[in-house]
């Protein structure tokens, strides 16, 4: 019964790669002074999982390193040892060594054994160093009868050897001699006689506990044997004691913790194996290398369009067979409903191909911010919001560079030095927030800091210096826009981080190329927010469909507060100013959609139609529609790719019946319904 294990190796390597990357990430975010127990546990788990996998496949070199690592981490996470920066550095070094060892097994590349040994020694030194200072750590190994000692596990010394103390039960002297000879084969043995006349060996060996048990099992009952890991530091004392052999005297055998120990180990190990088994079947064993493939975006788009067509065709079939007699055509109807399900699943799956969470972008910033802040001597706390917001992959890839610029700018120019912050009465550590959210037909990504804000005077002075026409009466927003003029930089010092004046205009140009725009909000002394708004080429939107006349429009659900039918007395007309509606003691402007879009409505009277209360940018208004149709997720399609921008419309979507429905631009509607209807039309 031979199983080709090599087919599972690939799975292990992939898994281990991920775990190592995860470990590195966790180590980087770890706060040394106050480590989060959850993070420590997570780091421990990565080491433990790699060890488990490596042991399964017999990669002993990897097991050795991870074992020491795990032991050390275990003590840290249990609070037996304080985490220091030295530890983190050693862990990172161990990660690199593991990478190297992994590569050795994987590609047969050369492995630097010395480096592996050096890391083991370094970790071991850290483990030892603390055992002298931490009371618990000292107590545990030298008290062989106490249960925690067994749990602590053997600790390897610099040569990779373990020191065990083997206490024998009452056995004849002849057997003790035989055992001593056998154990000597494993390593160096010293013998001592205990107070109760039993014999104890101290064994220094590179073999594991199991082998010792196996050898002793020839002579005596392993259950009666007591094996504990001996502390190297205390070993010399024992060696001295063992110099005077004393006749063993029979005593009652001490129940051995050994028996329970393997059982405790076995439980996580079997869990590990189950885990591996599952993963191994989940994946294509021979092809694990290609866990993702790169495909042209056009192909995906084509796929999406084709599936869209399929959905519409399916809806048509549904409509046709709806007229059939359900009893006579039972099987056809069953098949059709199955088709409907499959189509829906297919559509969902295809749609998800292009969408990626913003986390994909956000996750690369913590390290950058940490490094930058360190370099500049600033303290920055990095916060992300809305990392789950999904954005089209094409846009995600293109937003990385602009965001990079903005984050660098914020750390470099935005957030002040700790002293300055303290002087201004702010927290020493600045906060840098990256957020993403859907807003109407757009995705809004914001980089905001609580730093010094933009300096209006300085920007104006600089603009004059660069012959950019300015006036003192410009609004703040206009002044902030100057920052994005080509070659503009107000940083007093050009650092290697930023300040060469090629930042913001590049950002603006890149965003512009994606059809978006950049907005700056800044308050002196309390910070700057740079807001990027991108159109959704393929974002999915939760929409509420409303009907006016024969037209169906989609309202982005995020803007909808509630919908209601007003009593006639609550609607007030203001001469020449349109109507107001009273909703819970609040007067809201009434926007009749039929008027804006010049539609023949079913109900012109607000008290007969439905009012949808919308809220955007703090403004509320009531939109008059004929009826609500329903809620659905819609795929936002760009109207401008083949047409032009239409006032009051942010995009379009395709409904289930194949028809097109327009998505309302709620912010524009709210800004001014009057202005909108007077918008210039053609000619």
């Amino acid at each position, binding site marked *: 019964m031979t199983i080709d294990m090599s087919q599972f190796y690939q799975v292990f390597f992939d898994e281990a790669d991920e775990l190592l990357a995860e470990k590195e990430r966790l180590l980087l975010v770890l706060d040394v002074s106050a480590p989060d127990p959850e993070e420590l546990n997570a780091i421990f788990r990565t080491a433990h999982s790699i060890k488990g996998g490596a042991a399964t496949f017999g990669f002993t070199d990897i097991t050795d390193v991870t074992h020491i690592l795990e032991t050390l981490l275990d003590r840290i996470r249990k609070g037996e040892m304080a985490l220091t920066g030295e530890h983190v550095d050693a862990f990172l070094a161990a990660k690199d060594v593991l990478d190297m060892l992994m590569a050795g097994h994987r590609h047969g590349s050369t492995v630097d054994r010395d480096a592996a040994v050096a890391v083991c020694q370094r970790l071991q030194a850290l483990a030892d160093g603390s055992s002298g200072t931490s009371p618990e750590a000292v107590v545990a190994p030298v008290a062989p009868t106490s249960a925690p000692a067994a749990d602590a596990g053997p600790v390897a010394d610099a040569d990779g050897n373990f020191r065990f103390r083997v206490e024998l039960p009452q056995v004849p002297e002849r057997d003790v001699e035989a055992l001593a000879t056998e154990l000597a084969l494993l390593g160096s043995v010293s013998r001592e006689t205990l107070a109760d006349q039993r014999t104890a060996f101290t064994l220094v060996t590179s073999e594991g506990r199991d082998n010792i048990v196996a050898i002793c099992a020839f002579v005596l009952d392993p259950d009666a044997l007591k094996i504990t890991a001996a502390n190297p530091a205390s070993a010399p004392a024992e060696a001295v004691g063992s110099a005077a052999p004393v006749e063993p005297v029979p005593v009652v055998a001490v129940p051995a913790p050994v028996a329970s120990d393997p059982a405790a180990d076995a439980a996580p190990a079997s869990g590990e194996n189950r885990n591996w088994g599952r993963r191994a079947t989940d994946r294509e064993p021979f092809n694990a290398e290609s866990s993702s493939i790169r495909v042209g975006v056009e192909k995906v788009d084509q796929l999406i369009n084709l599936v869209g067509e399929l959905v519409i065709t399916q809806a048509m079939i549904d409509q046709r067979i709806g007229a059939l007699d359900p009893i006579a055509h039972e099987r056809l109807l069953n098949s059709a409903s199955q088709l409907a399900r499959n189509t829906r699943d297919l559509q969902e799956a295809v749609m998800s191909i292009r969408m990626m969470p913003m986390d994909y972008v956000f996750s690369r910033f913590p390290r950058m911010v940490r490094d930058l802040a360190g370099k500049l001597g600033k303290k920055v706390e990095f916060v992300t919001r809305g990392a789950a917001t999904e954005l089209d992959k094409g846009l995600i890839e293109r937003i990385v560079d602009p965001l990079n610029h903005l984050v660098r700018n914020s750390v470099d120019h935005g957030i002040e030095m700790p002293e300055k912050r303290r002087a201004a009465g702010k927290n020493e550590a600045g906060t840098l927030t990256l957020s993403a959210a859907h807003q109407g037909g757009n995705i809004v990504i914001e980089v905001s800091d609580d730093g010094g804000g933009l300096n209006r005077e300085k920007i104006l002075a600089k603009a004059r210096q660069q012959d950019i026409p300015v006036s003192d009466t410009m609004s703040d927003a206009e002044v902030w826009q100057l920052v994005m003029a080509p070659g503009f930089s107000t940083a007093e010092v050009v650092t290697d981080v930023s300040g060469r004046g090629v930042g913001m205009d590049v950002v603006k140009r890149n965003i512009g190329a994606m059809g978006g725009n950049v907005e700056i909000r800044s308050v002196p002394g309390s910070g700057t927010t740079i807001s990027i708004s991108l159109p959704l080429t393929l974002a999915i939107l939760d929409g509420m469909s409303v009907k006016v006349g024969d037209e169906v429009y989609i309202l982005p659900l995020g803007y909808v507060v509630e919908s209601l039918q007003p009593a006639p007395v609550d609607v007030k007309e203001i001469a020449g100013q349109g109507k107001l509606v009273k909703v819970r003691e609040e007067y809201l402007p009434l926007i009749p959609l039929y008027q804006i879009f010049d539609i023949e409505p079913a109900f012109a009277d607000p008290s007969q139609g439905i009012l949808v209360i919308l809220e955007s940018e703090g403004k509320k208004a009531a939109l008059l529609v004929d009826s609500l149709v329903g809620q659905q997720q819609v795929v936002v399609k760009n109207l401008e790719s083949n047409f032009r921008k239409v006032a009051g419309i942010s995009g379009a979507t395709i409904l289930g019946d194949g028809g*097109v429905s327009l998505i309302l631009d709620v912010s524009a509607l709210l800004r001014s319904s009057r202005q909108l209807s007077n918008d*210039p039309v053609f000619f």
Partner: protein
Amino acid sequence: MTNPAAAAAETHADEGVREYLAFTLGREEYGIDILRVQEIRGYESVTRIANTPDFIKGVMNLRGTIVPVVDMRLKFRLGEPTYDQFTVVIVLNIGGRVMGMVVDSVSDVTTLTPGQVHVAPEVGTALDNQYLIGLGTLGERMLILVDIDKLMNSTDMGLIEGIAA
């Protein structure tokens, strides 16, 4: 005459032989470069867009793409248009932009040699002279050859950005 495509691709100069899609609007017969035509399909319901001229019928779903549809009969005021199962939409692809054009009927694809194309006289068709390539003669038939790129990109049609001020 089966491979005029390469020559016909870009220029309007009278070199080589070109193929034109012939369609009628009112009583006149028009021709457009066949290479600009993506497909021909029946008229389906379109979604009206508010505050646009009447000849912009709205947008339709063409296999997942939102495509504007213009009715040339309305644009050129050729009587009251009817929409039934015989109404034809010529789907154009001009510089990557897709749009639909409603016409009365589509007749055939005609091959014209440079010798058959004459300069259009300064007199009235429904179309402004600047959008014409010339007049194509084919026996008794006369095709008004339209520079469809120029027409559809013009501010007259209101299909693109940067008009209306």
